[in-house]
C-alpha cells in the first residue's frame, strides 16, 4: 500500500479521527490518558494507534517508562501542498493582479 493509501485509510475511521482530535487538543498523551476518552477497549485503542502510527499520523516518544503519543501533522501538510496550496497561489496571484490594475488606474 502506498503512503497516501495508508494515510487515507487511517483517516477513514471515526475512532481514529477522534484519537487525532484528542492529540490535537493535548499533544503527548499516554495510552491510558487516551483510553479515558474513548468508548472502546484498551486493545481497540492500541490497534487504532498502531494504524495511525503506520500512516505516520502519530509519532511515539519514550519519556522514561512512559510512551507518549504525538500528532504528526507532516502527512496532512503534504495533502495540503498537493491539492490545496496551488489554488491558494492562484487566488494570491489574482489579488496581486487586481491591486496592480487598481493602482495603475489611479496613476493615470
Amino acid at each position, binding site marked *: 500500500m502506498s*503512503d497516501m493509501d495508508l494515510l487515507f485509510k487511517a483517516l477513514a475511521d471515526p475512532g481514529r479521527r477522534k484519537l487525532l482530535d484528542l492529540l490535537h487538543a*493535548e*499533544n*503527548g*498523551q499516554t495510552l491510558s490518558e487516551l483510553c479515558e476518552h474513548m468508548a472502546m477497549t484498551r486493545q481497540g485503542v492500541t490497534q487504532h494507534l498502531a494504524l495511525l502510527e503506520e500512516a*505516520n499520523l502519530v*509519532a511515539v*516518544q519514550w*519519556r*522514561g517508562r*512512559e510512551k*507518549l503519543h*504525538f500528532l*504528526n*501533522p*507532516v*502527512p*496532512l*501538510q*503534504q495533502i495540503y*501542498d*498537493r491539492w490545496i*496550496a496551488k489554488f*491558494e*497561489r492562484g487566488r*494570491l496571484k489574482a489579488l496581486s493582479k487586481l491591486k496592480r490594475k487598481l493602482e495603475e488606474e489611479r496613476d493615470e
Partner: protein
Amino acid sequence: MSEGAAYVYVTYIRTTQEKLWAYLTTPEFTREYWFGCTAESDFRAGSSWKLIYPDGKLADSGEILEADPPRRLVIRWRNEWKPENKAEGYTRCTMELEAADGAIKLTITHALEKPLPRSLMIEAVSGGWPKVLSNLKSVLETGAPALGKPY
C-alpha cells in the same frame, strides 16, 4: 504531560542519510526549502547557530549542543524578534536521522526547556515545521519545493 510543551514531527524521505544531513546543515541548501531562510552555523558542537530571514533579519539564534553526522543534531534555539516568545527562553530542537525501509526517517522533536505546559514559541514552530519538512521532502525527492512561500 510529564514535561514541558513539545512537538514531534516525523517524515520519511527517499534519499540518503548523508544527503539529508547535508541539506539540514548547509546554509545554501536550507534556503531551498526553508522559505528562503538561512541556517547559519558550522554545525559543530559548541558553535553558534542563527536562522536568518531572506531580508537579513535575525529570526532565531542559539548554539549547537550536539552534532553527530549523519545521525543526530541538537540545537539550543531561541526566538529573537518576538518579545513574548523570546521571554520563554530557550527551546531544544533534536533532529534524528535513521535508515528505514528504503527511506530515511527524520524525527524532529522541539521542546521548551522550561517545564511550562503551554508555550507560544512551541505553538509558533508547530505551524512552521510541517511546511518546512514537507518542502524538504519535495526538494530531496523531486528537486523542487512544494511551496514557494509560506501562506
